[in-house]
């Protein structure tokens, strides 16, 4: 089979799953077998994707060239601009291909057990198929406009899945919020595309990169000459594109949708809001990385600082949340912050780029494991709140082990996956930007702390969970993904990642330095110990500490009131001052103008009508008045 057949199958099968299930969602039979069909199709997709991606890595081990497998002009604008539907396979997209199909398969399998009692299971799997299709389209895009198209499509599948329980108002609100916030960010992305496309005279990634990533090209000269408000057009374009990425990747201050998105079914959170869609922003920046590196420092600095700030900010909030999915959501935001600042700091010889994608890779496994574990816990306890849990380690041994390993992985304890990628990031930051490095260190301490706070509260805290659930830990379909992902979380760190994926074709040498690693690992262990001290057994120490911190704690727990701020801006300012004003102007000023025009016409006609009084003498008066007027006019004219 040729590669383009592979691609057709990889992208086509999830879409087929979507079409098949959504069109037949009315029938009873579909509802029964929807999960099996979708999972089967996904398994086939994964098989081909793995094959394609491994083929790529096998054949491009020494030379990292991008392959344009498919290219089809979809919408031609003219003057060199066109939206081409193509498939660009390079190291990062091959890696993503593997991650997305693998996690999606795991989530499909998990959902078989988790969602089996749902009424609209066919719709659920259809939307999962749509999402997988769009996500694959996104990572394989060869054209910046194509990526925007799939970018929107993952947004809408995310909307549909968050709002899957559409009869719950909170789910609908969360879905709306997620869509609107990311849409707002996408506005930046769109304008960025317009700027880059206009000056680069193309939307294709390869052409764009070869033109704008080359300081000697005429396009590069032109885009750096142009500017607005004292900033180069190139910087504008890149910053705006990054805003789009920041929206999808839940970077501060566009992060507010991610915690609410946890209203969706838990497997969805594992797939979309932990492993794949939320890292699209990182992927986007990585795609345009060659352009970022030749531009002025501003865009990358913005990325660095926003990433670092988001990492710390989210870690702080995560320490105070009580809903386990929200803790995981903030943790996701924090980890994506890591990936972002790692891209921003560049590092020696592209170490930052490499570390970032490595972290993206490992994070996908352990974070989806955490979410699926959380799903299995929620399935057992029927609650998201940490206070309803405790002592679960005996009731759910498998979940316990896998959750523990995932926690160790995310905290950066060797030899689990997170350790390798996080050390690489910290090292890259250490060599380029000390301040960001310190933020990273503090954040990884906090990460270890809040993850183990979660772990201890759920699985220890009280001697044993009081209730026994007849369905136990879950079906085999829920256990299998947990086991596979646990295995992955242990092993993937050992992959010599930089050999396969790097920014410039040269593997980053020796990113693992034992001496350097001691400090961060010790800090993480300290975080774990602190969490154990406070949360291993039920006690009042945490509450007392929280009270002693006073308002600071309240602020953090309320997420620094950012949501309220947004709500205030939209409800009180946009709606009240813009929306209401526009409606008022329309109703009273513009419509009023036409209405008064009509009224005026009415009055005028009434006035004219009054002249026709019916009284002969009045008519005679007008008659003689007219004659008088005419005569005086005649005299006036004749006198000249």
């Amino acid at each position: 089979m040729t590669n383009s057949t592979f691609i057709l199958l990889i992208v086509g099968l999830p879409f087929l799953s979507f079409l098949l299930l959504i069109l037949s969602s009315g029938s009873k039979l579909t509802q029964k077998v929807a999960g099996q069909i979708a999972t089967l199709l996904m398994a086939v997709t994964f098989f081909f994707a793995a094959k394609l991606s491994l083929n790529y890595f096998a054949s491009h081990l020494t030379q990292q060239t991008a392959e344009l497998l498919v290219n089809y002009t979809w919408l031609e604008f003219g003057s060199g601009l066109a939206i081409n539907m193509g498939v660009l396979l390079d190291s990062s997209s091959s890696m993503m291909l593997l991650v997305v199909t693998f996690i999606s398969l795991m989530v499909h399998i998990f959902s078989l057990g988790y969602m089996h009692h749902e009424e609209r299971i066919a719709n659920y799997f259809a939307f999962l198929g749509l999402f997988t299709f769009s996500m694959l389209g996104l990572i394989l895009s060869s054209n910046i406009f194509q990526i925007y198209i799939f970018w929107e499509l993952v947004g809408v599948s995310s909307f549909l899945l968050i709002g899957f329980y559409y009869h719950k108002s909170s789910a609908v609100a969360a879905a709306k919020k997620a869509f609107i916030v990311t849409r707002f960010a996408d506005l930046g992305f769109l304008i960025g595309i317009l700027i880059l496309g206009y000056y680069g005279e193309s939307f294709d990634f390869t052409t764009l990169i070869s033109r704008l990533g080359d300081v000697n090209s005429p396009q590069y000269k032109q885009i750096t000459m142009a500017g607005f408000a004292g900033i180069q057009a190139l910087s504008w374009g890149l910053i705006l594109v990054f805003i789009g990425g920041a929206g999808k990747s839940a970077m501060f201050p566009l992060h507010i949708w991610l915690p609410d998105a946890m209203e969706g079914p838990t497997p969805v959170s594992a797939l979309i809001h932990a492993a794949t869609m939320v890292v699209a922003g990182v992927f986007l920046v990585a795609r345009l990385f060659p352009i970022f590196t030749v531009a002025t420092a501003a865009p990358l600095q913005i990325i660095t600082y926003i990433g670092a700030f988001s990492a710390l900010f989210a870690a702080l909030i995560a320490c105070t949340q009580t809903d386990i999915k929200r803790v995981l959501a903030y943790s996701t935001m924090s980890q994506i912050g890591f990936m972002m600042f790692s891209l921003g700091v560049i590092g020696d010889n592209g170490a930052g780029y490499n570390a970032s994608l490595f972290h993206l890779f490992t994070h996908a496994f352990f974070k989806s494991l955490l979410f699926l574990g959380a799903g299995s816990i929620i399935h057992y306890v029927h609650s998201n709140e940490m206070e309803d849990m405790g002592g679960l380690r005996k009731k759910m041994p498998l979940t316990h082990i896998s959750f523990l390993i995932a926690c160790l992985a995310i905290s950066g304890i060797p030899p689990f996956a997170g350790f390798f990628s996080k050390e690489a990031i910290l090292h890259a930051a250490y060599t380029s930007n000390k301040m960001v490095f310190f933020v990273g260190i503090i954040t990884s301490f906090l990460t270890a702390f809040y993850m183990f706070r979660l772990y201890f509260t759920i699985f220890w805290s009280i001697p044993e969970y009081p209730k026994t659930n007849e369905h136990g830990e879950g079906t085999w379909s829920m256990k299998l993904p947990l086991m596979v992902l646990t295995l992955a979380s242990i092993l993937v760190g050992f992959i010599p990642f930089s050999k396969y994926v790097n920014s410039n074709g040269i593997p980053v040498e020796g990113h693992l330095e034992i001496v350097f690693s001691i400090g961060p690992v010790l800090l993480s262990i300290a975080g774990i110990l602190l969490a154990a001290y406070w949360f291993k057994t039920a006690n009042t120490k945490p509450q007392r500490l929280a009270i002693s911190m006073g308002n600071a704690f309240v602020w953090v727990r309320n997420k620094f009131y950012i949501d309220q701020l947004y709500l205030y801006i939209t409800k009180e300012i946009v709606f009240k001052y813009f929306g209401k004003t526009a409606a008022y102007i329309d109703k009273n000023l513009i419509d009023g103008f036409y209405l008064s025009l009509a009224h005026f016409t009415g009055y005028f006609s009434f006035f004219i009508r009054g002249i026709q009084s019916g009284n002969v003498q009045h008519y005679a008066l007008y008659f003689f008045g007219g004659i008088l007027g005419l005569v005086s006019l005649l005299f006036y004219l004749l006198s000249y």
Partner: protein
Amino acid sequence: MTPVGLPHILFLSSCLFFIGMYGFFTRRNLITILMSLELMLNSVNINFVAFNKYLYPQNLSGIFFTIFIITIAAAEAAVAIAIIINLFRSSNSIDVIDAKEMKH
């Protein structure tokens, strides 16, 4: 004592005309209005005769017009009185205020 000239006659006719006009505007009885109308017509007649006499004595067209107008006025008076009588029959009044069917 100056002889009676054109201006004197014109003065008389315009007096007559405005008296008629005044009557036409102020009277409410249709018969009186008709009489005022006749006054105005007569002032015109005087004008015609006077202009004919003083300006173009060799022509007779002014006289002809006068006779023509007198005839028309008679016919008109007949028609007008017929209308007034009919009006009186239908609305029991010959007050001009009451005759407003022509409105709008």
